[in-house]
């Protein structure tokens, strides 16, 4: 099936050649048994449920009635695919917790559930009889005309047939003429049939798609899932840091200590100089692993927070950095980590590209917002284009609900500014 919707296909000349008219008919026709069953179920649930309200069973039946739209809407979304290839998304949110109670609470509070319930009522009481009428009329007229010769041959024994109680055919030529009329009418009726199905599909789409509230909740869920991803990534970083710290680093220290002790025994050459060399190598490995671990996750950030960690990077910078970061207290871990790595990247850029002789890091809080600025007196021209590290910083900051602003005119100076909410609304704490 091509990707055209029925409505678009109806405007093309080849509409009649494909299977679309048949699909449209099937779509309308299949509504009839579903609609009839729904009518029966709704009436039954409402009547029996109301009658038994005093018993718990009645309340349960009424609850089922209220939720009946959910499975029906699921079926309807699938049935829509018969004539409309654009999938209709599920507007329901995933419940925050598992379990039936949480699921019920989420569903009953959702606008989508009640829209679906409304759709069921409309379907059961109004739509399916109309659809049945349309498709039934077309089938009766065309089918009746087409079947005239067959009816004449089998039922009436070749004498006469009254077609739709209007015309009397009393010979085979007449009967075949009526059948031919039916064949001619078929493509003509295919159009109103198609339009009826398209209209019905449009109504379904309007009622069952996610409303504006649904979009919001999806965006919120998206934000949460990005946050969870970043959290998982951070947890993994800390795990690697811990493993290196508790494992490889301790063993290297022990090795270096053993080598140191062995050297004390002052063995004869060439063992002595080999030991010295091995000892030196172990020392170099220790320095490297220390720097590696710090790069993965700095312990000072966990222990002392953002201000101490920023001072620590400033200490290590090749370009002199003044730090004015007078913000007491701690921030959510995700905020501290995102800002820390952003400042790291900014200072690394200052050292690598700016040609600056001095940089300055300032941090302030303005009520609920944390603002961190990295300025340098370099040559400017920094930007987030071209897949630079700054793009990664911008992405990471946006996950915690913040923004990265860069002002870096050619000739400088460069100002790199982060605005981050102190407690991002969608943070999963």
């Amino acid at each position, binding site marked *: 099936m091509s990707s055209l919707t029925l409505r678009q296909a109806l405007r093309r000349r080849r509409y009649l050649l494909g299977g679309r008219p048949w699909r449209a008919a099937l779509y309308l026709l299949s509504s009839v048994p579903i609609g009839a069953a729904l009518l029966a179920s709704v009436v039954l649930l409402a009547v029996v449920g109301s009658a038994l309200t005093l018993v718990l069973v009645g309340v349960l039946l009424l609850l089922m009635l209220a939720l009946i739209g959910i499975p029906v809407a699921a079926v309807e979304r699938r049935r829509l695919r018969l004539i409309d290839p654009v999938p209709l998304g599920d507007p329901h949110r995933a419940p925050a917790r598992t379990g039936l109670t949480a699921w019920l609470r989420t569903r009953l509070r959702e606008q989508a559930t009640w829209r679906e319930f409304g759709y069921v009522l409309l379907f059961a009481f109004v739509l399916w009889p109309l659809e049945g009428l349309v498709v039934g009329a077309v089938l009766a007229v065309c089918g009746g005309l087409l079947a005239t010769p067959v009816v004449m041959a089998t039922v009436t024994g070749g004498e006469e047939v009254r077609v739709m109680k209007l015309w009397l055919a009393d010979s085979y030529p007449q009967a075949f003429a009526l059948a031919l009329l039916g064949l001619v009418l078929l493509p003509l009726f295919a159009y109103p049939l198609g339009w009826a199905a398209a209209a019905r599909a449009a109504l379904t789409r309007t009622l069952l798609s996610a409303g504006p509230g649904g979009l919001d909740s999806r965006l919120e869920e998206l934000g949460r899932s990005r946050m969870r991803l970043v959290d998982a990534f951070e947890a993994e970083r800390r795990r690697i840091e811990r493993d290196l710290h508790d494992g490889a680093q301790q063993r*290297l220290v022990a090795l270096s200590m053993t080598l140191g002790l062995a050297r004390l025994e002052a063995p004869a050459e060439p063992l002595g100089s080999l030991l010295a060399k091995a000892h030196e190598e172990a020392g170099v490995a220790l320095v490297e692993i220390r720097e590696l671990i710090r790069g993965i996750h700095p312990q000072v950030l966990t222990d002392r927070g953002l201000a101490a960690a920023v001072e620590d990077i400033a200490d290590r910078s090749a370009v002199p950095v003044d730090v004015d970061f007078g913000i007491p207290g701690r921030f959510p871990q995700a905020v501290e980590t995102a800002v820390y790595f952003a400042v790291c990247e900014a200072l690394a850029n200052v050292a690598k590209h700016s040609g600056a002789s001095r940089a300055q890091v300032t941090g302030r809080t303005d009520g609920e917002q944390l603002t961190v600025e990295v300025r340098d007196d370099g040559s400017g021209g920094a930007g987030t284009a071209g897949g630079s590290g700054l793009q990664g910083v911008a992405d990471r900051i946006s996950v915690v609900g913040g923004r990265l602003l860069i002002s870096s005119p050619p000739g400088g100076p460069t100002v790199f500014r982060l605005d981050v909410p102190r407690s991002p609304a969608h943070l999963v704490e």
Partner: protein
Amino acid sequence: MLRIVLAEDSVLLREGLIGLLERFGHQVVAGAGSADELTEAVTAHAPDIVVTDVRMPPGFTDEGLRAAVALREARPQLPVLVLSQYVQRAYAEELLDSCDGRGVGYLLKERVGNVEEFVDALQRVADGGTVVDPEVVRQLLRHRRDPLSRLTAREQEVLALMAEGRSNASVAEALTVSEGTVSKHFGSILTKLDLSLTDATNRRVLAVLAYLRG
């Protein structure tokens, strides 16, 4: 001989350090695996010196360091040598700020590999001296680069060695110059940093560190 309480959660390192210290004639009276055990062991054994790791159970953050600072608040005369896996100015400063910085040391853990220097540093801390790891001193120097930029490269080297708590003779040996030259450098450093000249090495170190900490 020193009676030592050793706090280190890695059994591998703890056993190694005990062996090393005993090899030099010291006695580890208690080995602690957590910050709480450290505090208990100090109360029980009244050791000559405490050697502790920074990162300790239960939280694996800076419990060892905090325990050391708390212990020094309770007993100002207790010498403490902190071993750290990080070059961290913030930790060193907190330790040096506790009880005027006498009898404290902050060394990178990997220094234990140079066994003689390590045992020497331990002895100096036990004697009330101040020992700061050269890497950390370098960071302290970098942190306060403005006034220190007036020092020559050689003077900065001398200052770094001095901050480690070394005597003039020891600095002279390390830089392979005469003791007289070292004295001359000291004088010039103290003048440039507006520090008055005294003859006690330790006081000089403290003064310099106090100045570096700003």
